[in-house]
Structures are given as structure tokens and as C-alpha cells.
């Protein structure tokens, strides 16, 4: 309980007092509120069981597992190139970003690296999936609070990005484009110009959303000071991505580790926010979308010529060893711990997905909040069901 904000502390005491009061004095029964598994506010099939005292949550527990697909087991009966098809479906809004750390881990074990051209294109597609992912979040954010307009804007502008991803990879949602040693194909003709135009539209989208939502009084009053997560607690739970940076921790895996990717070739900024509340988390994501636009714009100018595939054997056998690679995915730190025994397929893959950790804080974060705040806190933590259950 150290470093708890005053508000959290007060609400914790209040919840304890509420429990005692309800049991002894008034002989009232606490109410159990079941949100989901089909509630629209839960982005899918996450179930949240809350025990309420009046309007206040005294206990909350997410029930997940409605979408568990057992990917860790399935990877053990696949070959290395086949695994990308599975991991595409973990965070389905930013699919390409899921493939990258797994491919990097396999490349690390094989001690090969993708050629520079492939590295830059990978990074561009990675950032485009981030834009596609987070722009939906920004639109959806309004819906959670009853504002319907932003979601139409988001779906319209996200379509430009999805078209680009489809143009380059052939798949709107599940590109399955990354290969061990490079990429499946080169970029199609005219793609670079189209991307520039789309990025200009996305920048405008960010401005509109900022005006529409972030400047809105209702939005601010429902977000500011709600669901504060101090940095210590955030690290303890392994919160990552924008959730961590919104608590004032300056850490971004794109900047803070050496990977054969092209983020260091662009000039961009890691945004943090000192508040750690719901507003901060959303605000950091908005800024990150802008930074992603910046990265894509700069990298489009410096795609080097050359092959997109390094020399790899036809039948890929990965040497015995263990490797851990994680990247800064749209939702946070996404990593794969790959154990190979020298076979065609991995011996074991531990998938560390961002949402699993990000949602494990919910029992702590919802303690003592009021019912309408449940929705905004969940929305601001931002999770994808496939990313929790895997």
C-alpha cells in the first residue's frame, strides 16, 4: 500500500468501512454486479464481477478465459513459419506487430538478420498497425461515455490505414507477412505515395479527436483524477505501454533496446504523463499515434534499396537455444520466450501479451471506485480480448 494516492487510500478505507457497516449495522446485502461476458463496454467477452455497496465497488474480479485458444500448446505442433499465422490472432487490431517479436526471436536463434530494406518496411508496417489499433481505441473511447461521433471518424480514418496494410500484405486484419529472414513481398508500386496521403489524413484525425474528446468538459470530468495508478504499483503488476508511461515511467522498448529494426533511424519522442489517471493513459495514446505518423513519414523517405529477404534454407530448422524478444506493441510489451530443440518447430513458446498484465491490475484499480467509473477505467486501460486469453 505504499505510495498510494490519497484518493485511493481514502476509497480503500471507505470500502473497508462499507463492508463492516453493511454486514453489522444496517443488515443490508451487498449487490453483485456482473458486467459481461457480452456487455458492449467490455470489447468482447471479458466478464467483470463487482461487489457493490451502493454506488461503490468494494471488490472486483475479471473473469477471463472465454476466448482461450491455447496458442502456447498449438505452437508446439507447428513449424516456425506456421506460428505467425497463430500469433496474428492474439491482438487482432495490430496483427502485424504480433508477428515481429516472434520472427525476431527465431532470427536471433538462427543468428541471421533481415536486410536493411526489410527492417525499414517492417518498422513502417509495425507503426501502421499501431495507428490502426490506437485510432480505433480513440474512437471507441467516446462510445464508452456516450459520445457516438468519434467512432465514425475513427472507423473512417482507420480504413485508410487498413487499406495500406492490405495493399502491402494482402490481409486487412491478419497480414501474415513477416518471414524468418525478411518479408514475403516487396512493397507494391505507388504504395509510398499513398501512405504519405493517408498519414496526412491520420494527423488530421488526431487533431479532430483532440478537439472533440480531449477538450470536452464531460470527457475531462469523467477521466481526470479517476483510476490513478502510481508508478510503483504499475511496475509491480507489469503494466506496459501507454499505461506505464501515463504513470510517469519513461520506458519504451522501441527506444530502450537494440533490435534489428529501424526506429533509431527516425526522430521521435516518447511521451509520458505524470498523473497516472484515465485521462493520462488516453492522452499518451493520442500523442503516440502522432509519433507513429512521424516515424512512418520519416522512414518512407529512407527505405534503402536491396533485397527484402536474406538467404535462409528452404526448410527452416532453428538451432537449439532460448531467446526472449519483446517489442513495444500497440497495447504494450509483447514478447515471446522461444525455446528451440533444433527441430522444425519450437519446443515451447511462452507468449507474454500486454493485456494479460494490464488487466491483472483491475481488482486493484477498481477497488473503491464508483460504478460509472468502472467503464472509463476499463476503457482507458485498453485491452483486446485475444491478447488476454491467447
Amino acid at each position, binding site marked *: 500500500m505504499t505510495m498510494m494516492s490519497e484518493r485511493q487510500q481514502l476509497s480503500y478505507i471507505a470500502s473497508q468501512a462499507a463492508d463492516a457497516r453493511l454486514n453489522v449495522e444496517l443488515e443490508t446485502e451487498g449487490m453483485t454486479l456482473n458486467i459481461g461476458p457480452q456487455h458492449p463496454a467490455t470489447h468482447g467477452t471479458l466478464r467483470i464481477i463487482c461487489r457493490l455497496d451502493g454506488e461503490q465497488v468494494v471488490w472486483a474480479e475479471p473473469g*477471463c*478465459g472465454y476466448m*482461450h485458444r*491455447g496458442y*502456447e*500448446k*498449438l505452437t*508446439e*505442433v*507447428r*513449424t516456425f513459419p506456421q506460428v505467425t499465422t497463430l500469433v496474428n490472432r492474439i491482438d487482432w487490431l495490430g496483427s502485424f506487430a504480433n508477428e515481429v517479436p516472434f520472427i525476431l526471436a527465431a532470427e536471433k536463434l538462427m543468428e541471421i538478420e533481415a536486410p536493411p*530494406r526489410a527492417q525499414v518496411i517492417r518498422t513502417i508496417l509495425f507503426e501502421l498497425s499501431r495507428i490502426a489499433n490506437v485510432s480505433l481505441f480513440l474512437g471507441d473511447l467516446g462510445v464508452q461515455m456516450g459520445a457516438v461521433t468519434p467512432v465514425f471518424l475513427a472507423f473512417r480514418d482507420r480504413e485508410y490505414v487498413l487499406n495500406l496494410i492490405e495493399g502491402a500484405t494482402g490481409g486487412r486484419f491478419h497480414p501474415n507477412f513477416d518471414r524468418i529472414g525478411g518479408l514475403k513481398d*516487396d512493397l507494391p508500386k505507388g504504395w509510398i505515395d499513398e501512405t504519405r496521403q493517408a498519414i496526412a489524413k491520420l494527423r488530421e484525425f488526431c487533431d479532430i479527436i483532440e478537439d472533440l474528446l480531449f477538450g470536452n468538459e464531460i470527457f475531462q470530468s469523467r477521466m481526470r483524477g479517476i483510476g490513478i495508478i502510481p508508478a*510503483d*504499483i504499475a*511496475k*509491480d*503488476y*507489469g503494466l506496459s505501454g501507454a499505461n506505464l508511461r501515463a504513470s510517469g*515511467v519513461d*520506458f519504451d522498448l522501441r527506444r*530502450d*533496446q*537494440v533490435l534489428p529494426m529501424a526506429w533509431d533511424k527516425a526522430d521521435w519522442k516518447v511521451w509520458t504523463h505524470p498523473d497516472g489517471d484515465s485521462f493520462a493513459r488516453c492522452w499518451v495514446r493520442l500523442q503516440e499515434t502522432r509519433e507513429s505518423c512521424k516515424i512512418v513519414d520519416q522512414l518512407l523517405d529512407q527505405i534503402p*534499396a*536491396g*533485397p*527484402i*529477404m536474406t*538467404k535462409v*534454407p*528452404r*526448410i527452416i530448422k532453428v538451432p537449439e*537455444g*532460448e*531467446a*526472449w524478444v*519483446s517489442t513495444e506493441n500497440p497495447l504494450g*510489451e509483447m*514478447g515471446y*520466450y522461444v*525455446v528451440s*530443440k533444433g*527441430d*522444425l*518447430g519450437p519446443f*515451447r513458446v*511462452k507468449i*507474454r501479451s500486454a493485456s*494479460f*498484465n494490464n488487466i*491483472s*491490475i483491475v481488482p*486493484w484499480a477498481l477497488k473503491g471506485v464508483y460504478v460509472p467509473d468502472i467503464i472509463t477505467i476499463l476503457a482507458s486501460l485498453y485491452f483486446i480480448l485475444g491478447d488476454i*486469453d491467447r
Partner: protein
Amino acid sequence: MARLSDAPPSTDADETPALPGDGLREGIVDDLRNRIGDAIVDVHLVPNDDLWVRVRTDAWRQTADALKAAGFTFFGFLSGLDWLPSPYGKGEEDPTAEPEEPDTEIRQGVTGGDTRFQVFARLVDLDRHVGITVKADVPDDEPVVETWTTVFAGANWHERECHEMFGIGFAGHPDLRNMYLPGDFEGYPLRKDFPLLSRMIKPWPGIVDVEPMPVQDEPDADQAAQEESAS
């Protein structure tokens, strides 16, 4: 790749000259030795890349405390490993071919080990931008280790998942309920001797229309064409 426990890395002839990252990770190992002493069983260090440490089972929680005090405050993940080779194969072998002798040797990865199961976890130092993978053996007769929930609150769900999938117990965990499976489910799905039933019933459908792979050393036509078009 040098093993610190075997020999000082400088004697390794083909090792690249020391870069700043090496000192950082060696310093971390020294620091950890000062804190938990002989609880460290094995260290595996890939210079400028990654660090693995295996500790004694009874020092599992103590290691978490020590690492947290040493600056590794970010909890990445915690999970289990089953080193038994799968008795079922991958289910995509050619059904007409002579079955190969199954591999039954248990090899415990980069930091070695004595038991079939291991727990492992990943912690990150957010200031120095360095991560560490910690492993510990899980006794075969009684697969239980101490819980990390008292040190890292985020370990709660990871230990629940690990318990459900591997049957590894965590002494002191507040609530080891199942997360995914029904409560009366029997077996531990991620153990290697737990069969993947869909594969048992029906072999991998892709096996039917697999063409024979081209011979390895024939001239790589695709590659040449790609290089041409790119330049």
C-alpha cells in the same frame, strides 16, 4: 557465448572485444552474488544481449526480493517449462513413413537443471534498460515453489495460469483458482504428456497436399529474381 561459472570470459578466444553492455550484466551478476550468495546455481550470459540466472528452489522468493532491491522493479512474466520431450511428436509426420525413435532425453536449456519442470520469470530494470530471466527447478515429487505474489503483485495471475497449465503449486499464493478451464478439469494442458486431442483424432490436414520440398542446393531462382527486382 560464455558461461561465467565455467571460466572468465576473457579467455574465450573468439569472443568479440568487450562492449559497454558486458560490464553492465557482469556487474548485475556480481551484485546478485553479494545479495543471495550461493543460491545461484548457474549463470548464462550472452554479452550485450541477455542474461539468465538459475537459482536454488528454496531461494526462489528470496531471489525476487533481491532482484527487486537491485533495481529490477518491472515484472515481465512468470511461467513454467516442461522439459520432457513430447511423447506424441508433432502430429504432422508422414503417416506412411517408418516411425522414428522418439527422443526421450530431458535437456534443460541454457542454464541446465535436474528436474523435469522449471519455473522461470522475466524482470526488467527500467532505468538501466536491462532484463534478466530467472529460473528455478521444481521438485519432481512435490512440484511446489514459493509464491512471488508478496514481492510482485502482478505474479498473482501468472502463477494461477502456471498452476493451471503445468500443475506447479505456489506455496502462499492467496487464490490458486483456475482462470481458463472448468474447475473439475483433469490434467494440465501445457505438460508435454498431455495430448493435443485434435491432433490425436485427425492428423494435421495440411499433410495431404504437401509437395515434396525442392532440393536444398539447387540454384535459388526466387532469391535471384527478388534481388533483381529490388535493385
